[in-house]
């Protein structure tokens, strides 16, 4: 597809950055390329662990500023996502998973809005495949653990459907529950991150290209692009937070549907 070449000094063609524009690896060991994404993922682990351990360590009854900030984050996942969606008594079992997922994805997305970093780690698809597969294994495992082998029937045969429609409904349910769910779960995050990242990148290189033009009109047009790109940047920041929330909320919904399969 389209490869980014540096914009020509004037009058040249504009080749926007595309999905195959990659940063060079920091170092390579044989087949292993240590890229910026990997560094950011590891950094996010350190950041999240450091922040929440520092916030939770004191454990004061009347929280200080740091502890209060940590508690807001923890409470959000614990009460607004896990408790509200999964509910009941067994939501505490899934709080660590949801909590880790939310902040892992959130921090890795937020990288996209920080100048000089400006690269959401999940704009590469590998990480989201892994997270979605993990969630897939966990919710199916939870379903089997709670409902036994009956879970297979509960998951694909909706209640209250006449028997003659079942041959039509069951394949749809199988596809949508067991095939489409993990795929969309991973690709939703990846696609939004990639698209947001590319839009900011294209706007940035477009501004640069326009500034380089000799015509004043072209230079002036770069201001419009700048305004537009700032708006996109804000939208992107919103989407980054929202996608982390959606990912975790869907995880909670899938788990809830699996462990309460007989009441659905």
């Amino acid at each position, binding site marked *: *597809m389209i490869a980014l070449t540096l914009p020509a000094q004037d009058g040249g063609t504009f080749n926007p950055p595309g999905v195959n524009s990659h940063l060079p690896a920091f170092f390579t060991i044989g087949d292993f390329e240590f890229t910026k994404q990997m560094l950011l993922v590891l950094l996010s682990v350190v950041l999240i662990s450091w922040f929440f351990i520092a916030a939770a360590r004191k454990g004061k009854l009347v929280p200080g500023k740091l502890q209060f900030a940590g508690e807001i984050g923890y409470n959000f996942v614990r009460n607004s996502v896990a408790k509200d969606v999964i509910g009941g008594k067994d939501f505490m079992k899934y709080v660590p998973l949801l909590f880790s997922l939310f902040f892992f994805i959130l921090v890795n997305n937020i990288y996209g809005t920080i100048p000089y970093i400006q690269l959401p780690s999940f704009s590469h698809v590998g990480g989201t495949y892994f997270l979605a597969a993990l969630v897939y294994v966990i919710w199916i495992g939870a379903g089997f653990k709670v409902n036994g082998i009956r879970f297979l029937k509960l998951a694909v045969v909706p209640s209250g459907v006449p028997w003659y429609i079942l041959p039509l409904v069951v394949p749809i349910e199988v596809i949508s529950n067991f095939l489409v769910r993990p*795929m969309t779960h991973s690709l939703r995050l990846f696609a939004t991150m990639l698209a947001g990242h590319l839009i900011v990148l294209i706007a940035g290189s477009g501004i640069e290209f326009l500034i380089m033009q000799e015509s004043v009109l072209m230079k002036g047009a770069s201001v419009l692009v700048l305004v537009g790109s700032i708006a996109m940047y804000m939208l992107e920041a919103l989407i980054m937070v929202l996608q982390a929330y959606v990912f975790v909320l869907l995880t909670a919904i899938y788990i809830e549907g699996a462990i309460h399969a007989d009441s659905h």
Partner: protein
Amino acid sequence: MNGTINGSINLVGYGLSAIGGAIGVGLVFAAYINGVARQPEAQRVLQPIAFLGLALTEALAILGLVFAFVLK
């Protein structure tokens, strides 16, 4: 001005297919907001349903994305 556009026509197809998903997601959340506005206490019940609807609807757009990249 005889510019050329390079790239895959698949992406245009994906753009078109995303319209359907966009409309579907819009309908889902319009219904959700309507429901919550009429009955704010139903928000907890409606929220998972709305997001499940979002996931199902968006699945179509994401399938389009996959095919845009996979099909040659």
